[in-house]
């Protein structure tokens, strides 16, 4: 299968929408066109990029409750892929499967397969520690260690046993996270003295210090002001040169501005075996960002990005 058709077929959606593209275009609201214009601004998506995460029919359950189900998608190398959707639709749940952070929640279980560069992440014998060394994570709330800025950067390289020059790696990581100029004079000060935006950039710097291939970000800007958010978005675009990034975001402008591919997830009501209504997340549409924001194929995507629900 060539890469291009893979990209198209990876969009696993129920095409229940009866609208034609023409209707979408006529209904476009100012928000849509503004977002679509922003989305077009980035460099083109490389269709030939290698598949990093290959999800096949993934369902994640908490106990018997499927928080998100039947997700099939392919996330490609050196692109920024956004997961958007209303609160509680399972974005965090899905993201935390990508580096087996879900293992920390005893009730969580994963069905289906998630392949990372061809390797099954949930095969028996896979060590989650090894997975997380390759796939880093930045969390919703900045969570620096209550230690010095320097110690925050050096923790990862120390525990992973990699060879490193401490001064060099501190400087390089902080420069990479656009934080060096602000903190170079106070590397031994506590990280807790930094502002929220600086703390989050420190967390990104810390994640890059262990040289992962992929970085997962769970709403990294939700606690930040617009200026700090802008700084993080610039940073993501720069990091894309070296890393594959998957980001959960609440903020549609952010997805439109900063991301190459966008997956729209929403909550659907389904009936379980006992006939009870169970709400669980479904992947509705996954495509290039400018398609999602300019000319989505599904009515629900259209409704969501134009602010009609969610």
């Amino acid at each position, binding site marked *: 299968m060539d890469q291009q058709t893979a990209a198209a077929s990876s969009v696993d959606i129920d095409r229940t929408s009866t609208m034609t593209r023409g209707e979408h275009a006529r209904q476009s609201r100012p928000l849509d066109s503004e977002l679509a214009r922003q989305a077009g601004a980035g460099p083109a998506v490389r269709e030939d990029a290698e598949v990093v995460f290959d999800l096949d029919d993934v369902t994640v359950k908490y106990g018997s409750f499927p928080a998100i189900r039947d997700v099939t998608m392919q996330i490609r190398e050196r692109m920024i892929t956004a997961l958007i959707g209303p609160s509680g639709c399972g974005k965090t749940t899905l993201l935390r499967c990508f*580096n087996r*952070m879900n293992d*920390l929640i*005893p009730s969580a279980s994963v069905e289906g397969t998630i392949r990372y560069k061809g390797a099954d992440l949930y095969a028996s014998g896979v060590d*989650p*520690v*090894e997975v*997380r*060394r*390759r796939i*880093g*994570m930045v*969390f919703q*709330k900045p*969570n*620096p*260690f*209550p*230690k010095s800025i320097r110690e925050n950067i050096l*923790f*990862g390289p120390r*525990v*992973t046993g990699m060879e490193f020059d401490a001064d060099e790696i501190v400087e390089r990581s902080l420069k990479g996270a656009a934080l060096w100029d602000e903190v170079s004079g106070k590397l031994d000060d506590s990280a807790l003295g930094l502002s929220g935006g600086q703390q989050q950039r420190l*967390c990104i710097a*810390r*994640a890059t210090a*262990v040289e*992962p291939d992929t970085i997962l970000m769970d709403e990294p800007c939700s606690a930040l002001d617009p200026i700090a958010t802008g700084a993080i978005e610039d940073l993501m675009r720069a990091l894309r040169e070296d890393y594959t990034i998957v980001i959960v975001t609440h903020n549609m402008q952010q997805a439109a501005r900063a991301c190459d591919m966008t997956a729209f997830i929403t909550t659907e009501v389904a009936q379980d075996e006992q006939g009870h209504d169970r709400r669980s997340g479904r992947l509705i549409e996954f495509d290039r960002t400018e398609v999602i924001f300019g000319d989505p194929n599904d009515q629900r995507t259209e409704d969501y990005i134009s602010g009609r629900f969610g």
Partner: protein
Amino acid sequence: MMAVSTPQREAEVAQDALHAPDDRGRRERGFEFGLLIATAVAVVVLAVLLIDIAIDGLPFINSTRFTEYSSRFPEEFGFRSGITGTLSLMILVGLLSFVIGVGGATYLEEFAPNNRFTRFVEANTSNLAGVPSVVYGLLGAGVFVFFFSLGRSLIVGAITLSLLILPVIIVASREALRAVPNALREAGLGLGATPLQTIGRQILPQALPGILTGTILALSRAIGETAPILVVGALFSRRSDNVPWDIDDAFSALPIQVFDLVKRPQAAFQEQVAPAGIIILLVLLLLMNSIAIYLRNRYSRSS
């Protein structure tokens, strides 16, 4: 007759509404007074006890009390064996209970699967904290002195006191570990650290001030205990010093010596030497607490 509403009248009504109901001030003050009495009872009783002991014992504190061993004559009586015994016990009990207690707490809090066995252990750890200390003494005597044939030795005293305070240390350490935000565990694991690395390098250091506080309080209690070490065979007096590394040695301790003195028929022992011993014990405890508080502050500052 209807009151005519004028701006002035409205202002008066509004003013009245802001006044407290008549009895509120009285109730508040009454309650405050009750709390004051409660505090006073606790503080005054303690102060009276301490002052009484100080009046009796202080004139009797001199170098003899520290350099001499036990004696039949009040003027010649010294607490040397008790002081060295208590210091040795402090060190051994501190080490044993800290290592085992923090280890157990870390396992229960960070690693143990959430199953029936774990819940059983958890429930019983808390229950053990309420078992009378003399029961631990009997356990120490039965299990260590006789069954393991360790004799009436320093190590048996230390193990017995450690067992006595382990539940308290475990409960306190677990609370301290639980207070460390989960976000830090995720941060560590998310960077590719193993659970052991994350807990050892980030979580435990964060919890250490809390753990130390719990350990110090528990240790103070252990050091003042008489009953359990009496049962495992602490001596009223010896004519040699205890050192923490000679763990097979017989041992004495300050509370045991005080206990012995107050039973002696001579008034001087009861009224002068015993209070002097109590003062020495209290000073030792205060010293230990200050060292621990210093350590704790140093750790919380460096983190």
